[in-house]
């Protein structure tokens, strides 16, 4: 029998007992549906986390600080070294953070693989104001490769000489804008006190509005031009002899492999610095979510295994019912391999039917539910589609279900194949 004929015959046969096929397809449907939903949940949440993480910082950058050498219990106070500067730490009382100097930045930049080092300066901005309306407090940070999820407008241009700012969407209404679109392109005034306490103002243009996000700090992002202007304003009146010090530096590197990154990390720690990538800081959240998705997937697979027994049962009955037909075909010279292929193909077809309908229903229902949730209970987390279906994982689900159906079909198919023609024909 030709392969195509086998396939056609198998499909025809599977529709011969409609009720039985329908019930088996339903059992597989449940498994495929659950698996597709949990898969969509995993894809949706990890997409969201990835975009949120990208909004906070670049993936190809370390945040480098001086390693704290004095935090060990019972180690006593550190001996004074005239070459180190200490900043009051933000941690527990008494903890200190050693500051980075220009010499440190040069050392970090010398590590092979590091393409650029920029100090993290603290800009103590005081307020933001638009059109002489009310003033609001503001904290700003430099956009070090981060990709904020924008509600309106465009991302910052670090090459532009014009000062630009991205504001969180929570600022739109208080500053007096009617909506995000109106705010984009407007000039705002930023107040910053200088070294002598005098308030200085810098004007910047709103380049974009950031969606409210899971990991956002509520601060604004600024471009290099604005950062320079604010730094200058803040430094006005600083004694000329005071050398600049920094709490931390951002070291960027070319996209690298896991081992290259850990190599750079160990080099930096050997030199007395602590380097953390964004993944280091966010990694645990993702691990927990992957764990939850894994457990849900396991339940779906249990449902599928149960459905697999349904397939075994359906096909065993089918083999029983068609014993004489099998005998007839074998008496007419049909090989055992063809008989096996015929029944296996029938099983795989039932699996395909169940998984297509199951995945299709899951995608349809999931998309509707996800949109409803995004508009309703989850609207505070802008950009979160709790269920999102990528073609790859859905295809994997369909293939997996078909594989389970095929394996379930091998037992009945083997029983059908090994029968002696005349024994099958004599079967009552």
């Amino acid at each position, binding site marked *: 029998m030709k392969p195509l004929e086998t396939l056609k015959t198998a499909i025809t046969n599977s529709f011969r007992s409609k009720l039985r096929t329908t019930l088996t397809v339903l059992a597989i449907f449940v498994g495929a549906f659950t698996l597709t939903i949990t898969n969509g949940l995993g894809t949706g949440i990890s997409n969201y986390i990835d975009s949120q993480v990208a909004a906070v910082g670049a993936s190809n950058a370390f945040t480098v600080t001086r390693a704290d050498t004095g935090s060990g219990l019972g180690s006593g106070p550190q001996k004074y070294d005239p070459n180190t500067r200490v900043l009051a730490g933000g941690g527990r009382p008494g903890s200190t953070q050693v500051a980075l100097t220009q010499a440190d930045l040069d050392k970090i930049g010398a590590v092979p693989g590091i393409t650029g080092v920029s100090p993290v300066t603290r800009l103590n901005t005081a307020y933001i104001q638009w059109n002489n309306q009310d003033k609001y407090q503001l904290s700003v940070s430099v956009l070090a490769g981060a990709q904020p999820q924008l509600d309106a407008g465009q991302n910052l241009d670090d090459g532009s000489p014009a000062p630009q700012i991205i504001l969180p969407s929570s600022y739109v209404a208080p500053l007096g804008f009617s909506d995000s679109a109106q705010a984009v392109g407007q000039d705002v005034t930023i107040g910053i006190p200088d070294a002598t306490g005098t308030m200085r103002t810098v004007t910047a243009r709103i380049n974009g509005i950031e969606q409210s996000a899971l990991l956002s700090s509520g601060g604004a992002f600024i471009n290099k031009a604005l950062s320079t202007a604010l730094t200058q304003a803040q430094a006005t009146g600083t004694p000329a002899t005071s050398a600049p010090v920094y709490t931390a530096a951002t070291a960027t590197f070319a996209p690298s492999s896991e081992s290259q990154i850990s190599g750079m990390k160990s080099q930096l720690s050997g030199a007395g610095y602590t380097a953390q990538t964004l993944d280091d800081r966010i990694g645990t959240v993702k691990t927990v979510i992957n764990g939850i998705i894994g457990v849900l997937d396991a339940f779906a697979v249990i449902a599928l295994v149960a459905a697999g027994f349904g397939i075994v049962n359906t096909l065993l009955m089918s083999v029983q019912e068609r014993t004489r037909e099998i*005998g*007839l075909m074998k*008496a*007419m*010279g*049909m090989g*055992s391999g063809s008989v096996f292929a015929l029944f296996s193909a029938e099983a795989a077809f039932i699996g395909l039917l169940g998984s297509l309908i199951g995945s299709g229903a899951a995608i349809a229902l999931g998309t509707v539910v996800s949109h409803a949730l995004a508009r309703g209970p989850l609207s505070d987390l802008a950009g979160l589609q709790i269920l999102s279906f990528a073609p790859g994982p859905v295809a994997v689900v369909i293939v997996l279900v078909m594989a389970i159906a095929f394996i379930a079909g091998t037992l009945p198919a083997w029983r059908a194949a090994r029968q*002696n023609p*005349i024994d099958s024909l004599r079967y009552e």
Partner: protein
Amino acid sequence: MPVPILSTRDLTKTYGRGPDRFDALRGVSLEIDRGDSVAIVGKSGSGKSTLMHLLALLDTPGGGSVHVEGTDARSLSGRRLNALRNQMFGFVFQQFFLNHATTVLDNVVLPLKIAGMGARERRARGMAVLEQLELADKARNKAGNLSGGQKQRVVIARALANNPRVLFADEPTGNLDSATGRIVEDILFDLNQNHGITLITVTHDHDLAARFNRRVYIRDGQLITTDEEHAA
């Protein structure tokens, strides 16, 4: 002397074991020549059907051997065996074994489908053989809607689809009224006499057996020389 198309030597077949043991065949040796018409005659339980199943290579003997054109059937590979069943033998089953849900044509072309013939060729050959048995107008009917005589002719058409050289028929007239039975008999003998097909038939009907070139009588699993039953 030409090699017989089918021959058996000391053929035995046993069903069950222990107290349920039943010896269906107890050493049957037989030779059937090309183009011959042979009736295997015996009462029910005599082993006549078992003998024919072994000759048609549908079953494996307990002992002894079956030779097809001089080749021992046991030495045949699975593929060769399937090719023989498909190309060389046609089998007319007493219980018909038609698929009632599909059309007459689909039933008839089943051996061609198994042989891997293309759909168009299959249809042409199927219609030709239905024509031969005057069933062409029933080709599109569901097999379940036919009368007994028509079903028997469909089964013969199916057996003939692949141009077999040996046609086996198990009680071909057993389920038919005498008029229809006569028509089916005529078809079988026409195939034997005008198409050179070797005809091997199992029957307990002595009138039918009388029309055959040669009769083989079997009782309790052994061949007997004369028709004692009939003579007595």
